[in-house]
Each structure stands twice: as C-alpha cells, then as structure tokens.
C-alpha cells in the first residue's frame, strides 16, 4: 500500500487495493485459522510445542546416543570382528613382502599382570591416604634399603600421609651434606622438609656393586615408568616362585614370571609380618604389597586428584555449553523449519492488475 501511495500509480492501484481484500466469509475463516495455526507454530520452543515434547526429545536423544555408543562398542567393533581385519592386514603385508615382527613372548616380556581392582582407579576416587601412610612405612622399612626416591621430597608427604611435625622429625633422623660454610668446608646437618628422600647408596655404581651388578631403580616414578602400572608392581612383588622346568636362573638372580626375561636381581622382600602397622591393619604380604604399590602410585601420579577434578569440571561445563549450543541452533532454525508455503489459486498479482494462474 505504501509503495503504491508513494509511486502514485493512480486509479489502477486503487482498484487493486479495493479488490484484493474481498474474501468470502468461509475464506476469511480459513485464512484466520491458517494465521492462528502458523502463529502457534512460530511460537513453539526449539524442541517441540510443549515442555513434555522437549523432554521427550532430550530423552530420545540420550537413549539414541546410548544405544549407538553401546552397540558400536559391544556389537559392531568387537574383538571377533576386528581380529580378522588385523589378520588380513598382516597377511597382506606378508604377501607384499613387508617384514613382520612377532616381538611378544611371555618369557621375553614378562607375564602380563592381571588388572587388580585398585579402588583409586575409579574416575572419581582419590588415593586412600591411610594406605599411603602405611605404604610409606613399608617403603621406609623394606624398599629404602636398596631403592632411592630422588624426586620425592620430605615436604611432599606433608598433608598427604603425615603431619608437618611428623615429617620434620622423620627428616631430622637423616644427615645431609650442606655448605660451604664461611671456611669453605662442607658440613653435615639434620634433614629438613626441603631435602629429598635419602639415597641408600652414594651413586649408581655403588648400588650396582652392592647388588651383584643389578641397579635397583629409583622408585620416584616407577609406576609411571613400567608397562602395566601398579598392576605390574603389585604382581611383581608377590610373583616370586620356583622357576618352571627347563628354566635355569643364574646364581644371584631370582625367578619372577612378571619380570621381562624372568630373572630379576631383586629377591623377594615382602613376607607376612615384616612390617608392623601402627593402625592395626593386617600385615600379611599382599596387604604390604598393596599399600606400598599405592604409595608408589601416588609418588608417580601426585597430580591425580587435581587431574580428575579438572576432568569432571571440563565435562560438566562442556555439557552445559553443548546444551546451549544445541538449543541456540534449534532456536535459530525453528523459523526456517516451521515456514509454510501456501498455494493460493486465483490470487491477484500484487504488482499489477493481472490475474496469474500461479503467484
């Protein structure tokens, strides 16, 4: 209308304007209904007309993702189906003349340790700090005779397994070289919180000399450093047994199926009741091994708590942002998706006076 007034198209435009709104009562009713239904369409929320529909949509989406995920992992990508693919690839490589290596043998790589049910392996679980305290006791009384922990400092124990006073007293039991003093001489002083765990040997060569040529590895990061993590450490500590028939172990070595090669320099050290626990926990060998392994796991992964907390926060915040993003996309697209094209026969051309068959 405004356009016509501005451009002053005259009587013809006036006639069009007069003719256009003429509708029979039935037509007007239908048009009103159309308008009503389309307006209710456009005011729907992004996930459906009602909250119930939206909730249903979310439930269906969650169920579908669960079904897809579970079926992918359980029914589609099973070992039975993947194995022939790997076999086929291997035979193809062999046919093409590519060299293949079969590196794994139990004797060379050690027996694969079972997955022990460590309770701190749950994504929401911290270490059992009472077990860390017992594990430190086992390390101090048994392992520390040969193994160093160069990268663990006394202060690391404060607030983890011991109080500050306890750790200060423990550190003061050892002498550390310090200096130089005003005369340029080095001197010995009692340990402080800032000192590392004392070394059992002055250097690696002395350690080798004392242990028949085998170097006791540093235990600071031993769980991180061994394939199989804590499972390996625990199995190794308790895995000593008689060598099977046909296997001879050199003098000074010990047979342990979990150790790569089978012959380990370390003798079995954990027996029932070699350590007396202060909190009354049963001190059989498997309990000692479990506690000291947990302590070593803490030494290797001191950041575990922080890592797990950050992981959960990240997942939570990302889930919120993802929900917002999905809602925003559907909000923006709802106009496009609910748009309707209506066919009106015998309509009058809005631009001129003609009566086209299709507008």
């Amino acid at each position, binding site marked *: 209308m405004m356009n016509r007034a501005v451009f002053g198209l005259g009587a013809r435009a006036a006639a069009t304007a007069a003719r256009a709104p003429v509708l029979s009562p039935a037509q007007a009713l239908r048009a009103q209904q159309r308008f009503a239904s389309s307006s209710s369409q456009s005011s729907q929320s992004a996930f459906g007309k009602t909250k119930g529909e939206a909730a249903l949509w979310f439930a269906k989406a969650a169920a579908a993702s669960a079904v897809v995920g579970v079926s992918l992992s359980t029914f589609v990508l099973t070992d039975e189906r993947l194995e022939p693919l790997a076999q086929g690839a291997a035979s193809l490589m062999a046919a093409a003349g590519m060299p293949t290596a079969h590196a794994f043998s139990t004797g060379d790589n050690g027996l694969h340790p079972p997955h022990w049910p460590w309770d701190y392996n749950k994504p*929401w*679980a*911290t*270490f*059992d*700090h*009472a077990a860390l*305290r017992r594990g430190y006791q086992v390390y101090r009384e048994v392992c520390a005779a040969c193994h160093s922990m160069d990268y663990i400092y006394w202060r690391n124990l404060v*607030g*983890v*397994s*011991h*109080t500050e*006073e*306890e750790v200060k007293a423990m550190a003061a039991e050892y002498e550390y070289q310090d200096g130089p003093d005003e005369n340029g001489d080095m001197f010995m002083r009692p340990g402080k919180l800032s000192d590392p765990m004392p070394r059992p040997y002055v250097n690696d060569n002395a350690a080798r000399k004392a242990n028949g040529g085998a170097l006791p590895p540093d235990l600071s990061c031993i769980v991180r450093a061994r394939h199989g993590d804590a499972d390996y450490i625990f199995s190794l500590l308790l895995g000593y047994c008689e060598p099977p028939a046909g296997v001879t172990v050199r003098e000074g070595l010990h047979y342990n199926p979990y150790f790569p090669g089978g012959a380990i320099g370390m003798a079995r050290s954990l027996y029932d009741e070699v350590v007396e626990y202060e*909190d009354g926990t049963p001190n059989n060998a498997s309990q000692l091994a479990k506690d000291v392994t947990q302590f070593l796991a803490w030494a290797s992964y001191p950041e575990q*708590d922080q890592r*797990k*907390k950050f992981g*959960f*926060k990240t997942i*939570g*915040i990302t889930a919120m942002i993802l929900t917002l993003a999905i809602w925003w996309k559907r909000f923006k697209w709802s106009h496009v998706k609910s748009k309707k094209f209506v066919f009106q026969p015998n309509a009058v051309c809005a631009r001129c006076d003609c009566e086209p068959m299709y507008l």
Partner: protein
Amino acid sequence: MQKLVYNVFFRRSSSYLATIFATAFVAEIAIDGFSDRLWDAANRGRQWKDIREKYISN
C-alpha cells in the same frame, strides 16, 4: 520482567561486559564448590583431612 533484565544487564555493552565478568566470577566459585563437595562425598574417609585427627599430637 524480561524487559527490566534486558535493560539492566544486556542493553549497553558496558553493563553486558560487567554481567559477563560477574557471572564468570560467581559461576567459577559455584562450580568449584559444587565439584569439591561431590569429590569429598565420593571420597569420604579416604582423604588426608579425614584421617589427620588421628595423628595430630597436641
């Protein structure tokens, strides 16, 4: 109500920015507190603060 919220928090860029900063501040405290409480509930009796009473000597 919507109009009031829009006028106070979203209309001007300065107030919008202030809203974002304040929301981030509050949300971080809330999420940290919430996740810490969840963590403590899931690890009741396992953390150092749960067992330290046994070893304090004074």
